[in-house]
């Protein structure tokens, strides 16, 4: 699709990964995450191989490592929880640098960290190579409930409109000398949020009216049909399939 449509997560490119149909990529990323989660946490080498597989995919997509790593930061809040686990978990303990750590907790933390990081990396890679609109088409193609896909589509369309409305309300507040300083002003902010909700709700009603006026009867007409060739499926599924081999080896060894 054309210029000006890109989301911040998306990185424009013409690599073979970009060219894959969205539903193939979605299926590949989903299966990859499933395989990673199903791997025993003791098979540490397997996770290293997964990371290498992802790096190869990123290279094929011409997504630079720095871009991918920066996007991984979204994981940090979840990691904070994992870091606590060795301190609070029960069972056998080891002493490292004068700290008493639970062995079970260490394994748990590693488990969350490794699987989380790989899952996020796979999603980031998917988002970097697939436009939002394409992702929605892919979900539709994978037979996700159409209502969910429609809701996601409206979120994308109206996210900016509502953010803009919020910005205008903030400017209007500020123009009349309001500044949020502490708890006393939370009431005003809460009322603004309420007003924004009602405005959005009413907009929803108007949008529905406009849709019905153009013949909407409950399902979105399919405008663009995405088709994947067997070769494209093979390329997309190469990632989860090689991961599956690693996973099986992890269980056997």
């Amino acid at each position: 699709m054309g210029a000006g449509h890109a989301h911040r997560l998306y990185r424009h490119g013409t690599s073979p990964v970009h060219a894959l149909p969205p539903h193939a990529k979605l299926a590949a990323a989903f299966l990859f995450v499933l395989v990673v989660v199903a791997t025993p946490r003791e098979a540490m080498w397997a996770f290293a191989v997964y990371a290498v597989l992802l790096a190869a995919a990123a290279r094929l997509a011409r997504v630079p490592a720095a871009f991918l790593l920066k996007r991984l930061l979204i994981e940090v809040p979840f990691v904070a929880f994992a870091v606590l686990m060795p301190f609070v978990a029960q069972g056998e303990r080891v002493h490292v640098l004068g700290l008493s750590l639970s062995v079970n907790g260490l394994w748990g933390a590693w488990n969350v960290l490794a699987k989380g990081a790989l899952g996020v990396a796979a999603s980031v890679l998917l988002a970097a190579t697939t436009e939002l609109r394409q992702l929605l088409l892919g979900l539709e193609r994978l037979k996700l409930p159409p209502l969910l896909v429609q809701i996601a589509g409206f979120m994308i369309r109206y996210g900016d409109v509502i953010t803009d409305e919020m910005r205008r309300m903030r400017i209007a507040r500020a123009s009349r000398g309001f500044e949020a300083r502490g708890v006393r002003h939370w009431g005003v902010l809460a009322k603004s949020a309420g007003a924004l909700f009602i405005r959005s709700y009413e907009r929803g009603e108007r949008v529905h009216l406009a849709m019905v006026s153009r013949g909407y009867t409950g399902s979105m007409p399919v405008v663009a049909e995405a088709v994947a060739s067997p070769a494209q499926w093979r390329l997309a599924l190469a990632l989860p399939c090689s991961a599956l081999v690693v996973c099986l080896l992890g269980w056997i060894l």
Partner: protein
Amino acid sequence: MDPVSTTTASLEVSGLAYAYPDGHQALFGVGFTLRRGERAALLGPNGAGKTTLVLHLNGILGGGTGSVTVAGLPVGKQHMATVRQKVGIVFQDPDDQLFMPTVREDVAFGPAAAGIKGAALEERVRHALERVGMAEFADRPPHHLSFGQRRRVAVATVLAMEPEILVLDEPSSNLDPASRRELADILRSLDVTVLMVTHDLPYALELCPRSLILSDGVIAADGPTGDLLSDEELMRAHRLELPFGFDPRAVARTTHG
């Protein structure tokens, strides 16, 4: 299009009365007829029932008394899909009208809902966008367009359905003078029946030879736009005011004499 509809009127409204569920009565027996290809303005103060009337034209509101007929087809449950294709409503806020992620998909929405697919659909979209001069913006998301461009795309979304009658709700609101003129040029170039709901009296005079004044739920006046706007008593009685310094008679002299 069947041969009968070329002889019948585009829109016939007769004896239309409607009260909202909360008891507020908005329309008290509205009746008028629009000939095919006619451009008419529906004028009236706020709260006169204009929006209520518009929502009756494609059957979103109904259940009161009276009837609406579009190209010989009564508006009612059994013809709803056809009626909504024939009556194209352009709403006031283009952000309400343009709900799909890209311009192309939005313009395709109506025809696709009517079952048109593939190359025919593509052709409809291209043609509709060309008529409003927005063909090169097909792949853009609507929220990246200027307000005037969005209004034009909103018109295209309705044109793509090849309507019998185009109903515009406040088409000139929030437009800068250049966008306003561009929209006027587009509307003049279309060969469809147009009903324009507006407060913008000079715009009505510029575009519509005929005007209807809706006031307190009835059609209070129906005639040539220039005559109605020049009738000061009538205008005052229905809370219609011309912009400062605007003289409809002077405009009529420069355009007709």
